C-alpha cells in the first residue's frame, strides 16, 4: 500500500476537522449535499477495494448498494421507524449474501468477461426490481420514517435531523476508511494486492486465489450495502436507479478520478464528481452531455489515468 506523504496527512486532518465543524455554520441544503458526498465516498471506497486493490473491474457494484437500500424499505413499516441496528444488520446481510452468490459466478471469469458479467448481473437485478410492482416498480417507494436508535428509551441521535444524520454518515465514513487501512495492511490485504499484481504467481506460491477474491468481493459488497442503507435512509426513498449501471459507471469514474488504489482517493473522487455534477446541472438541463464530455476528455488527455494529476505532488 502506498505510504501517504506528510503533507497529505495534514491535509486530510484539516479536511476532517472542517467536515466535523461544518454543521455549525452550513445551511441545510449543503449539509444534506455533503452527507450525500460522504455516503458516495463510502460507496466509492467499497468499489476501490475491488478495482484499485484487487484489480477486479466491476461494472455491477450498484447491485449491492441497491439491494441493501431496498432491504431497508421492506423492513420499514409504513409510517413507523425501523430499528437502527436490526435494519442495518439485515441490509448488510442481504448485500453480503448477494455478493456471495454473484461473486461465486462472476469470479470464474477474468478481464473483459468479468466486466460484462458483473454488468449483466447488475442489470438482471435492475430489471427484476423495475418490473416488480411489490417493490414499487419503476417509481420506487418512499421510506416515510427514518430508522431510530433507542437504548432503553434514550436515543443518542435523531436521523430526522440533518445535522445528526450528517455526523452518523461522517462517523461511518471515517470508520470504513480506518477499517480499510487496517485491512489492506493485514496478510489478507497483501494477498489481494498480490492478486492484482500477478494472480498466476500467487497461485504458484500456494494461495487459493479464488477464495480470497470471493471474500474480498463479499466485503466490498457489504460496504456498498452500508452506503445503500445510508442513502435510502437519508433520501427517504428507493428506486431502481439506485441499481442501474449508470450508478456503477459513475462510481467507477469517481474511483479513477480520485486515484484508484490510494487510501483517500475514492472519497476525493466522489466529492469531485458530485460537485461537478451540481455545477453542470446548474448550467443546463442536458448536463449529462457535459459530464460525458468531461469523462471522454479526461480519459484521452490523461493517458496514464486521472490519478496522474496528483502524482507529481505525491512523488516528493
Amino acid at each position, binding site marked *: 500500500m502506498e505510504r501517504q506523504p506528510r503533507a497529505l496527512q495534514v491535509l486530510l486532518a484539516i479536511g476532517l476537522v472542517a467536515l466535523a465543524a461544518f454543521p455549525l455554520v452550513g445551511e441545510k441544503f449543503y449539509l444534506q449535499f455533503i452527507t450525500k458526498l460522504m455516503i458516495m465516498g463510502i460507496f466509492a471506497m467499497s468499489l476501490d477495494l475491488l478495482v484499485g486493490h484487487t484489480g477486479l473491474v466491476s461494472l455491477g457494484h450498484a447491485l449491492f448498494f441497491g439491494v441493501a437500500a431496498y432491504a431497508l424499505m421492506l423492513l420499514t413499516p409504513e409510517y413507523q421507524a425501523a430499528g437502527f441496528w436490526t435494519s442495518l444488520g439485515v441490509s448488510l446481510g442481504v448485500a453480503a449474501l448477494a455478493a456471495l452468490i454473484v461473486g461465486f459466478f462472476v469470479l470464474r471469469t477474468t478481464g473483459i468477461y468479468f466486466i460484462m458479467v458483473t454488468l449483466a448481473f447488475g442489470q438482471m437485478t435492475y430489471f427484476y426490481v423495475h418490473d416488480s410492482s411489490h417493490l414499487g416498480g419503476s417509481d420506487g417507494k418512499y421510506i416515510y420514517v427514518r430508522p431510530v436508535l433507542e437504548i432503553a428509551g434514550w436515543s443518542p441521535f435523531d436521523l430526522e435531523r440533518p445535522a445528526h444524520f450528517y455526523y452518523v454518515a461522517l462517523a461511518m465514513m471515517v470508520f470504513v476508511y480506518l477499517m480499510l487501512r487496517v485491512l489492506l495492511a493485514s496478510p489478507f490485504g497483501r494477498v489481494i494486492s498480490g492478486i492484482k499484481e*500477478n494472480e498466476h504467481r500467487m497461485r504458484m506460491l500456494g494461495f487459493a486465489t479464488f477464495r480470497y477474491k470471493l471474500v474480498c468481493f463479499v466485503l466490498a459488497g457489504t460496504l456498498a450495502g452500508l452506503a445503500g442503507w445510508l442513502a435510502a435512509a437519508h433520501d427517504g426513498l428507493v428506486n431502481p436507479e439506485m441499481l442501474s449501471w449508470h450508478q456503477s459507471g459513475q462510481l467507477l469514474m469517481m474511483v479513477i478520478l480520485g486515484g484508484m488504489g490510494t487510501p483517500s482517493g475514492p472519497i476525493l473522487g466522489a466529492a469531485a464528481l458530485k460537485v461537478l455534477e451540481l455545477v453542470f446541472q446548474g448550467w443546463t438541463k442536458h448536463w449529462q452531455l457535459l459530464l460525458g464530455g468531461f469523462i471522454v476528455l479526461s480519459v484521452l488527455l490523461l493517458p496514464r489515468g486521472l490519478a496522474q494529476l496528483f502524482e507529481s505532488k505525491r512523488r516528493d
Partner: protein
Amino acid sequence: MTEVALRTAALRKDFGGLTAVNDVALECRVGQMHAVIGPNGAGKTTLINLLSGDLAPSSGRIEILGRDVTGLPPHRISQLGVGRSYQRTNIFMRFTVFENCRLAAQSRLPSSMRFLRAAARYRAVNEAAAQAIELAELGGREQLPASSLSHGERRQLEVAMTLATQPKVLLLDEPLAGMGGEESARMVELLKKLVPGHAMLLVEHDMDAVFALAGLLTVMVNGAVLASGTPESIRANREVQEAYLGSPGHE
C-alpha cells in the same frame, strides 16, 4: 538412500493431436539434482508445468513425497512443498524485493484470512523472507522495487521467492536463461548450495552448468525419455550424441 520426493509414472500430455510429453517416468530424491535436457520442443517446460500443476496431465501419475497429486491445482501442489521458478521471470514487479519474498513466505501461514494485525508484524514470516533473501545473496537490496533489479538479480529473486515458501521439491525452469557469464556462475553456486536440503529438478540448456550440478540426467526428445542415468553414462551414450549432434529432423 533418502526418500523419493518426486516420482512420475507413464506421464502423458496431449495438445489436440500433438503429444508434448509421452510416457515419462522419472524420480528425484532429496539431496539430488536431476537435470532434464533435450532440444527445443522436447517437452521439458510442459513437463515442469505438469509437475507444478499449471497443466493437468492427459494420463499418468505424479507423486510428491509419497502422495498422489495428479491433477491437483497449483496452489495445492505448492502447499505440499513444491516450489517452481519460471523460464520467463515471474515476480511482482511493483513490489520491493523484500515484499516479494515476504508474500511468498506468508503463503506458509496456515491461512491468510487474517484481517487485523499488520502483515509486517508477523515475525516468523519476516524471518523466513529475510533468510531466503540472504540465501539468494540479495542482501542489501531488500527495499528496492523488483523492477529496478538487473536481469540476473531478478532471476535470483525468483529463486529467493521459491525458497521463501520452504519447499522440499524445487522445479527450476532454465534458471540461467539470458544470463551473462558472471551472473551464471553466481547462480550455479547458489543452486549448488541448495542441493543438500532439496529434491531439485532442473531444466537447462547450459551444458556446462548441467554437468557441474546434476547427479542424474534425463534426456528428452520429442516428448519422450531418450536416456536417463549418471552424467558420465549420458556423455558416453551414442543415441544422445546423435540427437544432439543434429539429425536434421529435430531442429
